[in-house]
């Protein structure tokens, strides 16, 4: 753009430049990509809040619906469609991330097919096969859009949370989804770590805290040690099939018993009963009793009755806490803080029992649905370069050991669990046969000794080893784990100086070219997305041209332009302003170009005057 390139010596910067140079706050968002619900939050000056839609809904159900015409719906709308079109409505996709088909031991309402390469399963939908990474990317796009709308324009990036126990493949899959959604990941952050950050526990010197996360369908408990900014997950536990939905189910069962209903209920009846139960549960968080009405039957449920109904479930969660403490060899009195996460921790009985059991401070001040996203946003703000207060650095550890298969089907650990990341470790291996020219390496993750009990991350072959007697060739295998817990493995043959190296990504992750293809696909299928983006970009471009031209006219318009020329440019501005309203990105782009073109002569004259002004004060010798 001709006009923007002009600077004005002697007078400081032009207005257009001054606007460009003012300290702009870097925008970054925190995303809680949950199994049941997802959430986006932003932070500023050490404070964060969740972003909500026009109806005040902050939670985005982690549900994606694919229509036959390729239209993708996300969130509450998709959830509504699920009632009628369950086979094309994907929920709980987080459970499939970075997993193989053999990992799925439960029923899903949609059809799953194995990928050819033994990678992640693929979900069959009316709009074609979708990988869990693609589905997650749709959820992320929705959240990112919400963030962009709030902050206005491009984002610096996002911090996305993952469960503490997520292994390398699950983390990689999450990062791939972000790439596909077009958002830069500033950091993958453990969910319990995020919750602790939200409460500022990272600023304390030494602490042992328990994060109790009872969500819609999952229960996670994580014991963490915070030591001067280093977060270590000491142990995790929980129940992947226990959550708020189970609490609702106890009420459903109670209604059926009380009302004496024994007949099979229709889908619609079950649905309405489920929402009645949910409503009753919510009522009982602040009332001592509530009236429950289902069709002709009506009855009163007291909080005490409800407590009795759910006690078995609550005890299960306490048991899981006990197990985690035992795993980490920590006694309950060593816990200084308990952080409550997940909507179901609003249930008074849950809070009561947790605080009885731990006898420590139980944090519920921050909305338990939002606390993880809030922590992520705080961290995102710091990572984007917006400093506030003292600068805390978060150091994470790898949750599971990484190693390699050795003779006899044994796993040899190269990086033990709980090692602070980033970390690089090298290990040397030799050939075991004379003349051996290749070596195959099997990369594993897990704590068990037998390869069969560990998760296989990747297998690759190092070729081109020069033939030598057994044991003479030395292969150095280097594991590099980055700050997000993602790994790269390199193998080098050292003995002869010939170096061959292989960089691999785990097999459940996607190859870069796969991701590229998916990004291309998503562009073609989501033409409307692309159009919206193009429109936004063309508007920004047009506004910039107008702004620059106006400020140039103010400074030099009178002195450098004839009246007619001045009027023509003014007319051009008006024209472009009208076109901006039209909503046609191509037209806006063309009009911008035209106006820009029309200013070239003016820009040239300004340049000349400025050079003259700049030279005026100097002698010829100086310029030479």
């Amino acid at each position, binding site marked *: 753009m001709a006009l923007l390139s002009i600077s004005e010596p002697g007078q400081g910067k032009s207005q257009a430049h001054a606007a460009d140079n003012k300290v702009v706050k*870097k925008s970054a968002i925190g995303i809680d990509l949950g199994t049941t619900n997802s959430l986006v939050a932003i932070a500023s000056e050490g404070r964060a809040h969740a972003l909500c839609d026009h109806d005040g809904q902050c939670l985005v159900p982690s549900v994606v619906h694919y229509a036959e015409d390729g239209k993708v719906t996300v969130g509450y709308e998709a959830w509504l469609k699920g009632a009628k079109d369950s086979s094309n409505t994907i929920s709980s996709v987080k459970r499939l991330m970075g997993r193989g088909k053999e990992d799925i031991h439960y029923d899903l309402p949609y059809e799953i097919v194995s990928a050819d390469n033994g990678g992640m399963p693929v979900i069959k939908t009316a709009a074609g096969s979708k990988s869990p990474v693609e589905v997650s990317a749709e959820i992320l796009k929705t959240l990112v859009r919400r963030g962009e709308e709030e902050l206005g324009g491009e984002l*610096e*990036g996002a911090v996305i949370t993952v469960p503490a126990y997520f292994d390398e493949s699950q983390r990689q899959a999450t990062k791939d989804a972000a790439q596909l959604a077009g958002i830069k990941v*500033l*950091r993958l952050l453990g969910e319990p770590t995020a919750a602790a950050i939200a409460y500022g526990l990272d600023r304390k010197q030494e602490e042992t805290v328990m994060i109790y996360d009872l969500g819609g369908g999952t229960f996670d408990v994580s014991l963490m040690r915070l030591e*001067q*900014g280093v977060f270590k997950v000491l142990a995790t536990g929980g129940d992947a099939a226990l959550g708020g939905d189970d609490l609702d189910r106890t009420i459903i069962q109670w209604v059926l018993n009380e009302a004496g209903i024994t007949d099979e209920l229709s889908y619609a009846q079950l649905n309405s009963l489920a929402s009645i139960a949910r409503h009753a549960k919510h009522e009982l968080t602040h009332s001592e009793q509530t009236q429950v009405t289902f069709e002709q039957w009506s009855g009163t449920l007291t909080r005490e009755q409800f407590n009795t109904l759910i006690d078995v479930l609550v005890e299960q969660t306490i048991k899981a806490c006990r197990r985690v403490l*035992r*795993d980490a*060899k920590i006694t309950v009195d060593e816990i200084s803080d308990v952080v409550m996460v997940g909507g179901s921790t609003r249930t008074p009985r849950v809070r009561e029992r947790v605080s009885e059991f731990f006898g420590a401070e139980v944090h519920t001040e921050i909305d338990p649905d939002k606390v993880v996203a809030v922590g992520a946003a705080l961290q995102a703000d*710091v*990572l*984007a*370069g917006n400093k506030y207060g003292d*600068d805390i*650095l*978060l*150091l994470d550890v790898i949750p599971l050991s990484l190693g390699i298969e050795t003779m006899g089907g044994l796993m040899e650990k190269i990086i033990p669990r709980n*090692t*602070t*990341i*980033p*970390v*690089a*470790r090298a290990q040397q291996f030799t050939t075991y046969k004379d003349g051996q020219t290749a070596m195959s390496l099997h990369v594993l993750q897990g704590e068990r000794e037998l390869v069969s009990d560990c998760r296989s991350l990747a297998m690759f072959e190092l070729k081109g080893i020069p033939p030598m007697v057994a044991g003479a060739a030395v292969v150095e295998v280097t594991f*590099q784990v*980055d*700050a997000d817990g993602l790994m790269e493995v390199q193998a080098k043959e050292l003995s002869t100086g010939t170096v061959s190296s292989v960089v691999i990504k785990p097999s459940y992750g996607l190859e870069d070219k796969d991701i590229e293809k998916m990004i291309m696909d998503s562009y073609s299928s989501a033409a409307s997305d692309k159009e919206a983006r193009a429109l936004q970009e063309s508007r920004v471009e047009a506004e910039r041209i107008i702004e620059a031209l106006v400020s140039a006219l103010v400074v030099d318009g009178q002195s450098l332009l004839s009246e007619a020329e001045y009027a023509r440019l003014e007319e051009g501005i008006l024209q472009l302003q009208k076109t901006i309203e039209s909503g046609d990105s191509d037209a806006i782009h063309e009009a911008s170009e035209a106006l820009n073109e029309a200013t070239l002569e003016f820009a040239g004259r300004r340049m000349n005057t400025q050079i003259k002004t700049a030279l005026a004060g100097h002698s010829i010798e100086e310029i030479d």
Partner: protein
Amino acid sequence: MSLQQANYFELFSLPISFQLENTQLEVAYKKLQSEFHPDRVVNADDRTRVQALQQTSMINDAYVTLKSPLKRAAYLLKLAGVDAEEHNQLHLDEAFLIQQMEMRETLASLIGDEDLEGLDAMKDSIDKEKTTRLANFEAQFTASQFVKAKSIYNQLQFIYKLLDEIDKAEEKLLDY
């Protein structure tokens, strides 16, 4: 002095010695981490980020090495030009070999008897052996008696491993 060339002690501005000021290590580690961590350069170009990744990996490795007395001992030997992992039959202490076998037998029979108290007692006595040897290592190393220091290091390797095995056996008996 660039980060890559520095030895681990210099990296943390610590004297090259087996005696280590723990707080000084912690403070220096945190300072380096906050300076070089990849989180500080998330928006920089690829080269800078890869460099940060390598530098922090190295800092982490240095920290782990110096923090553990056993690893620190091996590292000091390496700096003195002695390969701590090379096992030379001539330098093996015969008395210690016999002691090793006895300790292994004791452990095996305690595990067989599921004798938790016995395991605890054994742990205590081996802990004492460890403390003595760490002090001996320091004395020999400071006196530049590297061959002797190495022999003590090899005994310490065995002792650390044995302590680990006792821990595992206890865990198993307690059914964690």
